[in-house]
């Protein structure tokens, strides 16, 4: 049932997530572009204390838009970086990272793939969930330098152009979100969950561990999704969405 993963478009590589692309305002600006400009203008005003000093604002905007420069600001003495080739959504990126860079930060700050979210940054909330070689992991709790040669799939790599991935479509249909912040992680986690179920994986609540094909009951879904928290409490919709997919799968 899963669609072929498509390479992200230029706009995504430049820093806009799918939601941004769908939400261009009257001036043709995305939400992210607007926020970056607003932040830059704010920084410019703070620096100059006067309206109309657009040079500083432009420089600040450039700093915010260029991750390499942003890192240089955060770390007074930048360490030797390590070159790593990351394959994300079937697209190869060559990045030079400080070894401390988490996979999540590499995706967000170095590749502009801001769909994966930073919630707790400690592997407790699941907002950063991505797929590595088809398996769901917490991208905040691992270092980017360890992922050379692995196939990484983020929320940006699931849809096929304008056609949503079946999991994305089910989340829309069953109202599986409210604010949307945890949603990329919830969706990637669901893609992983369905692959695990197809492979016959068991869970802590599977009554018979020897059974080859556990049924994805509501209890099973809740247990298997316990690594993804939703502070809006959209769990009933999320469970319904996954139930519909589990039904289609079996």
């Amino acid at each position, binding site marked *: 049932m899963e669609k072929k993963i498509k390479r992200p478009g230029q706009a995504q590589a430049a820093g806009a997530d799918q939601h941004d692309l769908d939400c261009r305002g009257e001036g043709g600006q995305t939400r992210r572009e607007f926020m970056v400009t607003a932040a830059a203008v704010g920084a410019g005003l703070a620096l100059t204390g006067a309206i109309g000093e657009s040079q500083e604002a432009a420089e600040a905007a450039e700093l915010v838009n260029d991750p390499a420069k942003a890192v240089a600001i955060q770390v007074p003495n930048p360490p030797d970086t390590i070159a790593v080739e990351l394959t994300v959504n079937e697209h190869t990126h060559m990045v030079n990272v400080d*070894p401390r860079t988490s996979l999540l930060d590499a995706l967000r700050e170095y590749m502009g793939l801001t769909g994966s979210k930073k919630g707790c940054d400690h592997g407790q909330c699941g907002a950063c969930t991505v797929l590595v070689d088809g398996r769901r992991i917490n991208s905040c709790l691992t270092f980017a330098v360890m992922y050379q040669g692995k196939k990484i799939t983020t929320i940006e790599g699931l849809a096929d152009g304008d056609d949503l991935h079946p999991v994305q479509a089910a989340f829309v249909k069953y109202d599986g979100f409210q604010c949307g912040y945890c949603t990329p992680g919830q969706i990637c986690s669901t893609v992983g969950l369905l692959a695990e179920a197809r492979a016959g994986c068991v869970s802590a609540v599977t009554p018979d561990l020897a059974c080859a094909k556990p049924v994805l009951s509501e209890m099973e879904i809740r*247990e298997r999704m316990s690594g993804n928290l939703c502070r809006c409490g959209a769990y009933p919709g999320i469970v319904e969405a996954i139930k519909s997919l589990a039904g289609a799968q079996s």
Partner: protein
Amino acid sequence: MKLFTYSKASGSVGHALEESAGKSGSHYIAGGTNLIDLMKDDIVSPDHLVDITALSCSQIEKLPGGGVKIGALVSNSDLANDSFIRQNYPVLSRALLSGASAQLRNMATVGGNLMQRTRCSYFYDVAGACNKRQPGSGCPAIEGYNRMHSVLGASSKCISAHPSDMCVALAALDATVQLTGEKGDRKVKLIDFHKLPGNTPELETVLLPHELIVAVELPHLGYSKNWCYLKVRDRASYAFALVSAAACLDIEGGKIKSARLALGGVAPKPWRAQEAEKLLVGKEPDERAFKAASEAVMKTARGLEHNKFKIELGKRTIVRALKVAAGGVA
């Protein structure tokens, strides 16, 4: 996070030892789910990381004389879902599945699970004292909020609890840990691998500097018929144990032929209850025998202000786990 240097060991275990040798602040990293968390909070600050994920320690091999050898790099989810383990060592599978989340189990390895550090909140608070983190600085948990802490095996220096579920099942299954290091290979019983805190809570395992866990071995007897892993916790999923129990029985002719019992969440290491096991042997698998066993386990328990409930909870958890194992009503 303090800056570190990084290198990746390839192929042989020997290469990992070479990469680590001579570097005083060197740590091995595989799944990283606990180590990176600790590094982010500056609780552990390695100077060098040796990435061991490419080593050839990812197999689950049946041993010729019975039993199984589990490579240290097998992920928690692969081990829990392995069909041989599910059928022959189900208590291990259930214990693994009871810990963490699906994402974390996909990342975390067997070796890393053995090396998991306590989740004591004082250990995590770098602004405060902790004898484990800063030897000699004191243990605020003893007089503090100690609800998650140990009632067995603690000392006046440290009352933290060991967080692993997997290790509880491994203790019950009489596992052996295979190590390799500068002085060669050796095997250590799982129940001897972790240390009690005593006066040196900073020393948690018998691992020597640069020594590496390469595998865990389980003997033939997996108690695949009469077993139970019962985890009691504050949430239904994705929470550490208040108390957990791995109970395994071999019942023949209406009598207990052999018994295994290990506990989690109540002690600074996976707590094997061998005295209680001896009490069970030869008895009929009934409530009276199970209660006697539970009393024996908790005989030396010492509760503090917020964790004393664990003594009674522990007894009830043991009795219920043994009942389920015996095939009774939970």
